């Protein structure tokens, strides 16, 4: 594209890179930390959207990755990302091992307009997340809680152990309100701790008993996590007679 370099390109809808500042780093589980970022140019976003992060080396080499926004849409000018450390990864170990409060991180967003939930979207809503795949779903759950709507939500969260459930205590608190948000946990390497929870990988039977928590068929099912997880969960939904048209997936590759 040929543009006059002295004037910034203000193409409508253009996603601009900006340098966000890390204001806090909070360990969430053994492998996931939250990074709070202050945006010099705050943007509106929908719960479920993500940002692209760009890291640059001294010689100009750059790496980019996508991270879902964990915080709910609000006017704070800050967003929260929750990043899982992948062994031998290029970007996630940088965040875990090197980044500190005060560092500047380039990012742009919001991105993705399909894997989203807005307060006007009717329920019941089924959310299924594995590991860090809970991140965009938690943004939706926080948004629902902040806006005090009682759209029926049921979240099925899968993790290795009780301590690996991302945002576990916060989710338990929302569930305790009994305002239409229901939480089902399944731990694949540890026994279930609460009545109604599971201790195995997601299957059709588990989905069927989760759907039985709802008084109506789901209007929307949002499934997020690694590809094998998303495949298994979405095929289990279809096997439990959920229409494929209401299932949306976000795969972390």
């Amino acid at each position, binding site marked *: 594209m040929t543009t006059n370099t002295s004037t910034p390109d203000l193409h409508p809808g253009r996603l601009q890179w900006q340098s966000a500042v890390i204001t806090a780093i909070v360990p969430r589980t053994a492998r996931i930390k939250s990074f709070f970022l202050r945006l010099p140019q705050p943007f509106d976003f929908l719960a479920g959207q993500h940002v692209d992060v760009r*890291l640059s080396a001294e010689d100009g080499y750059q790496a980019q990755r996508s991270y879902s926004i964990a915080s709910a849409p609000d006017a704070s000018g800050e967003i929260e990302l929750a990043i899982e450390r992948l062994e031998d990864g290029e970007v996630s170990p940088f965040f875990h091992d090197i980044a500190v409060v005060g560092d500047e991180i380039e990012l742009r967003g919001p991105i*993705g307009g399909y894997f989203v939930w807005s307060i006007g979207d009717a329920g019941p809503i089924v959310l299924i997340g594995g590991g860090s795949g809970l991140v965009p779903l938690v943004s939706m759950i926080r948004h629902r809680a902040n806006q005090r709507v009682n759209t029926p939500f049921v979240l099925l969260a899968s993790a290795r152990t009780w301590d690996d459930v991302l945002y576990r205590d916060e989710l338990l608190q929302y569930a305790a309100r009994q305002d239409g948000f229901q939480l089902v946990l399944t731990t694949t390497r540890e026994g279930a701790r609460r009545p109604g929870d599971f201790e195995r990988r997601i299957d059709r039977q588990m989905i069927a008993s989760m759907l039985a928590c709802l008084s109506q068929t789901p209007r929307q099912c949002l499934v997020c996590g690694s590809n094998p997880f998303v495949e298994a969960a979405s095929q289990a939904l279809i096997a439990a007679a959920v229409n494929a048209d209401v299932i949306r997936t976000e795969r972390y590759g």
Partner: protein
Amino acid sequence: MATRGFGGRRPPRDTAGRIPPGQSATDGFPVLAATPTPYIPLDQWSFTLKVGPRTVATWNWEQFNALPRTQFTRDIHCVTKWTKLDTIWEGVSIDDLLKAAGLEPPTKFTLAHSYGGYSTNVPIDDLTGGKAMVALRYDGKPLEPDHGGPARLLVPHLYFWKSAKWVNGLQFTQRDEAGFWELRGYHMRGDPWKEERFAGD
């Protein structure tokens, strides 16, 4: 602006020139899709070529498999930042498809359509001249459903969301009509070497 403390993992020197900006090479084959994987029985599969609303040709699985075959070994680039080098595909080139239908491109734009409702727009110049195919086989085997089987569009020189999975039709349009991701802010063309990820890039 350099990011404090970031060194980065460089591609090996011999492949460095093949990795577009912001991408990194992977040995795996990640799967991205906005919907569950549809499983389409081959006896129900068909491919339709349209000009606007008008159908000009339809093939069932058997007829489609009888069309001339083309092989591609290409690098592919996903907008989610991974690049996979030297992927091996077999299928029916768009040139052969148009020839079989006896159709000269009537417009400059197309929309590819898929089972499950996905669509993506690709200018015809990016499909003809040996640039693209409807792929039926990957790495010597029938294409797996989660990678888009039975058949996917393959336009390897554009970001991979243009290579529509579970493809079942190609439609010529008068104007460049936005498809599924293009309606949601992604770039109308998607050239990885120009980093055309989002509208305005």
